[in-house]
């Protein structure tokens, strides 16, 4: 990940230093010095860097290269620097950035939590519809063909009797889940007569699965329920 940031300069002070000799033209009394500080900027001050100075001579009009600075200039620079303190605003990023990061992570965790709880409540509603089937309810199920490929189809509840559930298979069977949510609701889409399945065994943790046939060799996993005109999906 790349961050684009700027290096900006904070200007502290500029002073004329009449006691200094210019190392370029050797003229006395014409050197001025500015004390500054670099700081990192990303939509606001992030953190300060080192302080520095630039010096120039009003007599010869040249800026003094750092390699030409004399010991006296260094002395005056340190004296000027002592009189400055870094403004608190330059440290803004050091506490704003961690706060923003924490807020971002917090919002992300909250969103995941809300999403999980919604998913759990949807799954609970689907389980409830499976355990207490009402005539007319349509289950959106995934089953398998004889060649063991997934088949996306629908079962409509005809009636329930004791532990048995009578379901009508749908004549719409899809090989992918692309238009799966377009639940066929017309009575003609479901084939008579109903076949019988056992009500799911909640104790075994498979409350969303219907099994039928001898020794339960056919199965269908419920992924959604169409009831009262709307589709309730587990995920």
């Amino acid at each position, binding site marked *: 990940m790349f961050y684009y940031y700027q290096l900006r300069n904070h200007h502290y002070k500029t002073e004329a230093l009449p006691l200094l000799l210019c190392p370029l033209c050797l003229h006395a009394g014409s050197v001025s010095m*500015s004390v500054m500080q670099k700081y990192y900027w990303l939509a606001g001050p992030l953190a300060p860097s080192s302080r520095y100075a630039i010096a120039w001579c009003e007599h010869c009009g040249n800026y003094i*290269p*750092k390699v030409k*600075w004399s010991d006296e200039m260094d002395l005056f*620079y340190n004296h000027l620097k002592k009189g400055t303190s870094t403004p608190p605003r330059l440290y803004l990023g050091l506490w704003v950035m961690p706060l923003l990061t924490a807020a971002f992570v917090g919002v992300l965790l909250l969103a995941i939590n809300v999403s999980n709880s919604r998913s759990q409540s949807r799954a609970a509603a689907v389980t409830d519809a499976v355990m207490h089937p009402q005539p007319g309810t349509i289950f959106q199920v995934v089953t398998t063909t004889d060649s063991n490929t997934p088949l996306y189809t629908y079962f409509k509840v005809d009636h329930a009797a004791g532990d048995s559930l009578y379901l009508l298979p749908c004549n719409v069977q899809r090989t992918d889940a692309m238009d799966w949510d377009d639940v066929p609701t017309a009575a003609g889409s479901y084939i008579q007569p109903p076949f019988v399945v056992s009500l799911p065994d909640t104790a075994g943790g498979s409350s969303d699965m219907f099994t039928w046939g001898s020794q339960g060799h056919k199965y269908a996993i419920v992924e959604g329920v169409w009831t009262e005109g709307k589709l309730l999906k587990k995920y």
Partner: protein
Amino acid sequence: MAFDEHLQRIPKANWTDYEYVNKGSRQPVRVLVYAVLFALAMWAFALWRWYDMDRSEQTGSELSITPLEWGLYKLGGKWALPLLFALCGAFFIWLGFRGYARLKKMKES
């Protein structure tokens, strides 16, 4: 004089030649030392990645690489990335020498 006025008077490319931080700023060799250290770090990285890729090729073991490294590997095999970093290191040393020569000339003038 405010910073903007200095900026107008000093060419921006040479601004750091006039930034005095401490006594070390007076040594022209400092820029060369920084450049060499940076180049050594890049060469060490190049060597490390070459070694990892070579070992992965020899043994068939898995290696986690970034998309940039993958692109370079597709282009020029295990040598592309180390070569790029080695050239970058050499470029930094050249920049260091250039800066050193310029500052030395300034100091002696």
